[in-house]
Structures are given as structure tokens and as C-alpha cells.
């Protein structure tokens, strides 16, 4: 029950925030070809960097939850603060470039309602897996081992994220070419 509530504390704010991101992205995506080109440049550039382990920093905010926000709070309030801050994956440090491709892809949806719906689904997926990761870390890893294990795993996830970005870059290139073919 506590685990379910903890996961909900991540998923619900993430769904709400990504729903709004979906709406805003759709409003900004009035120029679909420009958004497609921007998405392709981003996916290709960071996909190459992450897959080949080139020294490029993914765009990310560096904000962290201040310690005094969670100190001397009940477990429920702490979970809510962590969930709202970490669930959406946008405002705290994120080493994976894939996260910022999502708003660009959201802009490609045909209407506001679909964009908001896809945004909510993205929020549920991100917040849910983020919370499950935290729960897994808490239950499986001793505190002394955690940092070493985490650092060891990060390169694997960056590699996978890079491959996902390159898959997207290939797909976007095919779609852009098909659109240009239709216009010519």
C-alpha cells in the first residue's frame, strides 16, 4: 500500500505536468517542418554523442530539492515533495538527453487534446518508472554500495538513450524526406 502511494506521488504530478507540456508544445508547434528539423538535429547530435561516449553534456537544469524542504517532515509529505520534484524529470538534474526530445515530438501531434493525452501518458511512463527505480534502489542496495553501482550503471543507460535518439533521428529523417517528396 505504501509503495502504491509512493508511486502515485510520482505519477500523478508527472501526468499533470506533462499534460500541460503537451498543450504548450502543440501551441508552439505551429511550424511542423521546423519542429521536425529541430527534433532531427537534436536527436542526431545527442544520439551520436551518447552512443559514442563523446564528452557532451545533455541539456539539463541543475536544481536540486533543497534539504530544508524535506527535513523534519512526515514520510507522506517527503514522498509528495520528491514525487512532484522528480516525477516529471524536467526540473532536476537529468543526464539523459532523451527527455528533451519528448516536447519536440509532442509538438507534432495533430490537435491539442491528443497532445495533452500523449503528454499525460509520457508523464505516467516517466513518473512510474522513476518511482519504481527509487523503490528498487531502496530495497535492493545497501547505502554503501549504492553510489558505486549507480555510477557503473549510468553509462549503460546513456548508451541505450543514445541508441533510442539515433533510432528517432533515422525515423525523423525518413519522415522529413517523405514530406519534402510530397511537396516537390
Amino acid at each position: 500500500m505504501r509503495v502504491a502511494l509512493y508511486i502515485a506521488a510520482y505519477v500523478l504530478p508527472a501526468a499533470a505536468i506533462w499534460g500541460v507540456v503537451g498543450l504548450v508544445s502543440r501551441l508552439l508547434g505551429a511550424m511542423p517542418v521546423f519542429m521536425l528539423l529541430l527534433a532531427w538535429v537534436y536527436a542526431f547530435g545527442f544520439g551520436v554523442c551518447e552512443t559514442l561516449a563523446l564528452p557532451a553534456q545533455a541539456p539539463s537544469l541543475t536544481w536540486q530539492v533543497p534539504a530544508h524542504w524535506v527535513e523534519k517532515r512526515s514520510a507522506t509529505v517527503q514522498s509528495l515533495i520528491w514525487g512532484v520534484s522528480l516525477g516529471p524529470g524536467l526540473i532536476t538534474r537529468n543526464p539523459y538527453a532523451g527527455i528533451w526530445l519528448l516536447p519536440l515530438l509532442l509538438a507534432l501531434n495533430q490537435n491539442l487534446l491528443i497532445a495533452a493525452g500523449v503528454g499525460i501518458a509520457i508523464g505516467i511512463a516517466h513518473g512510474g518508472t522513476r518511482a519504481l527505480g527509487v523503490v528498487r534502489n531502496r530495497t535492493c542496495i545497501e547505502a554503501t554500495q549504492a553510489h558505486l553501482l549507480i555510477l557503473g550503471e549510468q553509462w549503460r543507460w546513456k548508451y541505450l538513450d543514445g541508441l533510442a535518439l539515433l533510432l528517432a533521428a533515422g525515423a525523423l529523417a525518413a519522415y522529413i524526406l517523405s514530406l519534402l517528396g510530397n511537396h516537390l
Partner: protein
Amino acid sequence: MLEAWVTQRQVRFLSAGSILIVGFVMTRQLLHTSSFTTAATIFSISLAALVGAGKLASP
């Protein structure tokens, strides 16, 4: 052993090039039968899940 193999420079180049081509060819085929936005939606949700799960490896 697999990890050591994947970290080799030439394997990384090969996998990067291969996945780029796979994305291109799959989408060319997909455009005949389905819409790009449907595929982009499924991909976006999967990528969000991947990044969320990967954050457990974020210090």
C-alpha cells in the same frame, strides 16, 4: 563480456550507424501502412519510460 565488447569504439560506431538505418527503413515502411504520429506517440512513451528508469542510475 558483452559490456566490454560494447564499449569498443568500432562496436559503438557500428551500432550507431545500424540503429540510424533501422529507424530510417522502418519508418519508410511504416509510412505506407500507418501514420507517423502514431509511431511517434508509441516511441515517446517508451523513451519516457527508458529515461525514467535510467534516472535510477543518476547520482
